[in-house]
C-alpha cells in the first residue's frame, strides 16, 4: 500500500512514473522492477517508517553508467531526509559496481529541491527543453551526473556523518 500511494501520489511519484494517471495496483507492482538494478525503501531512523523509494536503474556496464531515481512522501520532501537516502544510494552504487558516473533525470520543479549541489556534488550534462507537460504547461527536464571521482572525494566525510545514528541515542 505504501508503494502504491507513493508512486501514484501527484506530490510524489505520480507525475514521474505514470504521468498523472491512476494505474492499477498490478501495473504499479510490475513497474517496480522495470530496468531496476537495485532499489531500497528509504526509512526513518530509528522509527523505520517508510519515507520514500530509491532505485538504481538502467545500468550500462560497457560504458560505465547508470541512473538513480528517488521518490519521497510529501512531508519528508525538503527536510533533507530523502536527500540523505539518495546520497547513501550513490555510495551503494559506486561501491558495488564500477560505474564512472551516475545520472539523475529531474524535472525543473524537482531540480529546485537539490540545485544547491550543482558544481559541488553533481554537474549538469543536459537540458531537454519543454520536454514534459505537467501542471498546465511544458517543462524542462535536466540530466545531471555524479562522477566517481567527485564521490570518492566527498564520500568519507559524508558517510561519516550518516553514521551519526549508529550507536547513538536519538531523541
Amino acid at each position, binding site marked *: 500500500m505504501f508503494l502504491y500511494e507513493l508512486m501514484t501520489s501527484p506530490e510524489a511519484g505520480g507525475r514521474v512514473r505514470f504521468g498523472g494517471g491512476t494505474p492499477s495496483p498490478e501495473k504499479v507492482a510490475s513497474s517496480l522492477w522495470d530496468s531496476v538494478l537495485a532499489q531500497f525503501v528509504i526509512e526513518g531512523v530509528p*522509527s523505520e517508517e517508510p519515507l520514500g523509494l530509491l532505485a538504481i536503474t538502467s545500468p550500462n556496464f560497457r560504458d560505465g553508467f547508470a541512473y538513480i531515481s528517488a521518490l519521497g512522501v510529501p512531508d519528508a520532501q525538503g527536510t533533507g531526509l530523502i536527500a540523505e537516502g539518495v546520497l547513501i544510494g550513490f555510495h551503494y552504487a559506486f561501491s558495488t559496481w564500477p560505474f564512472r558516473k551516475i545520472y539523475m533525470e529531474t524535472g525543473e520543479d524537482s531540480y529546485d529541491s537539490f540545485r544547491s549541489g550543482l558544481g559541488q556534488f553533481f554537474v549538469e550534462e543536459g537540458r531537454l527543453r519543454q520536454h514534459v507537460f505537467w501542471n498546465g504547461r511544458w517543462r524542462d527536464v535536466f540530466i545531471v551526473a555524479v562522477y566517481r571521482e567527485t564521490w570518492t572525494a566527498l564520500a568519507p566525510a559524508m558517510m561519516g556523518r550518516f553514521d551519526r545514528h549508529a550507536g547513538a541515542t536519538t531523541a
Partner: protein
Amino acid sequence: MISGDIEQEVLCLVRSVKKDVRVDSLTRTTTFADLGIDSLDALNVLFAIEEHFGIVISDERARAIRTVGDVIETVMALVPERT
C-alpha cells in the same frame, strides 16, 4: 530579531550553510523555503547543528523542521542544560 545564545548559534550555523542569509532578517517563523534552503542545504544545516551541539536529531524530529524556530526548539529540547 531572535535573541539568546542557542538562537544566535543556530542562526550562525544556518548562515554557514546559506551564506547570503541576513541574520537580522530572521525570525522564528522564517521558513527554510523563505531562505531558499533546499533539501541538500537542509541536510547540511542538520549536520552542522548536530556537530556543533553534540546532539543527534532523529529523523522524526528532522521531518518536522520547517522554520528557524523549529530548529531552535529542537536544539533546546536536546540540550536542556543550556536553556
